[in-house]
């Protein structure tokens, strides 16, 4: 239903009946992911997870998971109260890169697949062109 809602909100969902459904199915199958939205969504989740994972050892006063080793990769990160905020920011950054990258690669793969399918269809269509001349 999501694509239909999107189309309806843009005033593009006006085609009635089966043709509309077929068009919506087509859009649902080939529509790309929103890269920035995916990046931000992953950023929020990863940032929150790292912040909460840091918060537990901080509250217990014991870095039982040796999370401080993440400071080797995330500059400034420590298992401390400021480290919770720094972890949130680093988690957001890494999550954003992962989410954006995932959406980018997925969209590129769909585009590549569509290009191959279209090329094959065109080849099939014109393969007997010389026979008709």
């Amino acid at each position: 239903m999501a694509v239909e809602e999107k189309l309806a909100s843009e005033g593009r969902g006006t085609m009635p009946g089966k043709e509309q459904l077929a068009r919506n199915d087509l859009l649902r199958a080939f529509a790309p992911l929103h890269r920035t939205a995916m990046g931000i969504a992953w950023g929020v989740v990863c940032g929150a997870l790292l912040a909460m994972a840091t918060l537990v050892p901080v509250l217990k006063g014991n870095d039982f998971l040796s999370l401080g080793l993440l400071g080797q990769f995330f500059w400034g990160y420590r298992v401390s109260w400021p480290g919770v905020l720094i972890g949130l920011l680093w988690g957001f950054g890494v999550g954003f890169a992962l989410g954006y990258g995932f959406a980018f690669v997925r969209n590129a793969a769909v585009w590549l697949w569509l290009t191959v399918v279209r090329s094959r269809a065109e080849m099939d269509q014109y393969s007997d062109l010389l026979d008709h001349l």
Partner: protein
Amino acid sequence: MEPEEQQIEHAVILLNEKLLGVVLGILFGTGLFLVTNFLVLKGGRHVGAHLGLLSNFFPGYRVTFLGSIIGFFYMFVVGMIVGVVLGAVYNKIAKA
């Protein structure tokens, strides 16, 4: 009305938040369940010494068969929350 190709270019997939939550919940839960039981079956002197540290986050979790079931439920909830938040944030921005 725009040509079909342009519609495809402008359309954006929206996610089903609840479905994503359930899927990630099952994946996360099954992952911890399998990893825990792998270590239980593998055996040894210190079974799951590192994985057992998860009990600091998930009270009641242990590297045993019963612990793997408890861990499944914990990770299901975590995955569910991750999926719902992921879907909600994505949809909010993609719709804007």
